[in-house]
């Protein structure tokens, strides 16, 4: 049955063909990855170069001005404020909902349609979510254009995704770990709390980063909810949250940086349209990047603390 041994130096047609396929696959995959990275690198490089001479302490921390370049601080603050408000609602509710869906709800027609709906909602065009927010959180509530309306609309947009991502992170925990804990006489909640959650932390952090990045950069949802106006100067000593001029108040119109970039480019008012657009975009990008890196670092710290690895 055995054919005479062929010298290893000479390839058969089949192995030559499969080796060629192997090489082609490597090149194609490498090229696709390089293309994606080049696009990203190009954008970042463009923004960095374009924002040289624009982004300065005065640009970042100054109040808006018609005569001079810059002053994006109130907008930047609004972005952070709305991000904070949104995550304040989304993180606890999203994570608890995710835990429920993964550990308690089970698999039946109802829960599967909920999972489907969670994924569907997060792919609804954001302008549609914005218009829904206009009806629900601006008009029906009677709040008008406020930071809170914006944050509620963003929560609607993000909560399902965060719950779904949390659920997936929990489901990725090996069943052996759960069984090990239950077999030692731990209750279900003890098992979730002490074994499953710590192992799922990195995945949950990724979910938070993904959703927070979306919130921070989102414009369309906020156009008709958080409004397109903002006070040009904030007095941080004013902590009266019922006062619409206080930077801490959720009941005030709050244009975010992303909304401002859109508005600035669409309407082109003022003397420094291009510079302001470039500078603001660079700040937005830099902040998202900084947020991601610090969230990952925090996640690593947390999971080391919890898992002793």
């Amino acid at each position, binding site marked *: 049955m055995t054919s005479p041994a062929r010298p290893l130096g000479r390839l058969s047609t089949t192995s030559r063909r499969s080796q060629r396929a192997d090489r082609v696959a490597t090149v194609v995959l490498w090229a696709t990855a390089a293309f994606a990275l080049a696009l990203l690198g190009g954008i970042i490089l463009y923004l960095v170069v374009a924002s040289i001479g624009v982004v300065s302490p005065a640009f970042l921390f100054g109040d808006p001005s018609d005569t001079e370049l810059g002053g994006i601080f109130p907008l930047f603050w609004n972005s952070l404020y709305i991000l904070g408000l949104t995550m304040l609602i989304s993180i606890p509710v999203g994570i608890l909902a995710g835990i429920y869906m993964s550990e308690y709800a089970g698999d039946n027609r109802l829960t599967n349609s909920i999972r489907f709906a969670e994924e569907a909602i997060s792919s609804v065009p954001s302008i549609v979510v914005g218009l829904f927010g206009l009806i629900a959180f601006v008009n029906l509530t009677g709040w008008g254009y406020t930071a809170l309306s914006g944050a509620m609309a963003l929560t609607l947009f993000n909560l399902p995704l965060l719950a779904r991502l949390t659920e997936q992170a929990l489901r990725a925990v090996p069943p052996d*770990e759960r069984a*090990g*804990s239950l077999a*030692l*006489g731990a*209750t279900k909640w003890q098992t979730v709390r002490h074994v499953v959650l710590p192992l799922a932390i990195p995945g949950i952090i990724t979910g938070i980063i993904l959703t927070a990045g979306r919130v921070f950069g989102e414009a369309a949802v906020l156009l008709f909810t958080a409004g397109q106006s903002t006070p040009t100067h904030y007095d941080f000593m004013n902590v009266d949250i019922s006062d619409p001029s206080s930077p801490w108040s959720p009941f005030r119109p709050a244009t975010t940086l992303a909304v401002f970039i859109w508005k600035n480019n669409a309407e082109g008012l003022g003397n420094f349209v291009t510079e302001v657009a470039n500078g603001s975009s660079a700040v937005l990008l830099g902040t998202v990047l900084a947020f991601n890196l610090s969230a990952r670092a925090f996640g690593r710290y947390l999971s080391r603390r919890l*898992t002793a*690895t």
Partner: protein
Amino acid sequence: MTAAPTMAPATAPITVHIDTAMTTAAGSDGEGLSTVMKMAAEKLSVTYGGRVAVREVTIAVPERSIMALIGPSGSGKSTVLRCFNRMNDLIPGAAVTGTLTLDGEDIMPIDIDVVELRRRVGMVFQRPNPFPMTIYENVAYGPRRRGVKDRTTLDELVTTSLQRAALWDEVKDDFRKKSGLALSGGQQQRLCIARVLATQPEVILMDEPASALDPISTLRIEELMRELRKTYAIIIVTHNMQQAARVSDLTAFFTMAEDRAGYLVELGPTNQVFTNPTERLTEDYISGRFG
């Protein structure tokens, strides 16, 4: 599906079915086996989503003994094992019927305290599954969950459990800091055994505990089992027949029926089952003539 007949606490009615095997059995170390049954199953059947996985198994495990469950894959050994601590509850669509007792007390009713049952009937899994925590916290896990907070009590439990599981010497320097995951496979499995010992169970179930381990680690686990046998009743599922012959006092041989349902063919003292089985099926399996 019929409801499980309620079983009044009784002293030893289950032994009737296999009493001859029990009373004549001698432990591998020469001691006679106890006639007190720690756990017993009578006409135990398990179905998964309507398909019968195990049919009418009647089996009893004396205290301070090791029973090996052997047989081909799919013969229901692990399924039976997982009935003893009600782990089958976790499998959607699984239904168990028959009688199952621990110290004569019925453990089948849906409303028994399963958490307490699992504390009394510990389990070691096929693949070592230490928690992602320090070695100390792994061992302290069970006691902590049932509310032990006192530092000295915990320290003592952890230390003695690691000693009994023959892991102490290897980890005594850094068991408070080192992660359980940083241990080798054999050490991890001994950690899992220590973890079970710390909950102070009465019965230990082992589901192929050495199948993922090298021969030296396997031997250490087996020595450990012989040691633990002095206190506990141990039920072990194994595919390794030398292992069954080496460690167990009693051997139960399972196989599959025409409809793929597992059933118990023969139960007896290990040396008898291996040298002079009463059933042809057992003999074929043990001598390697099986499929």
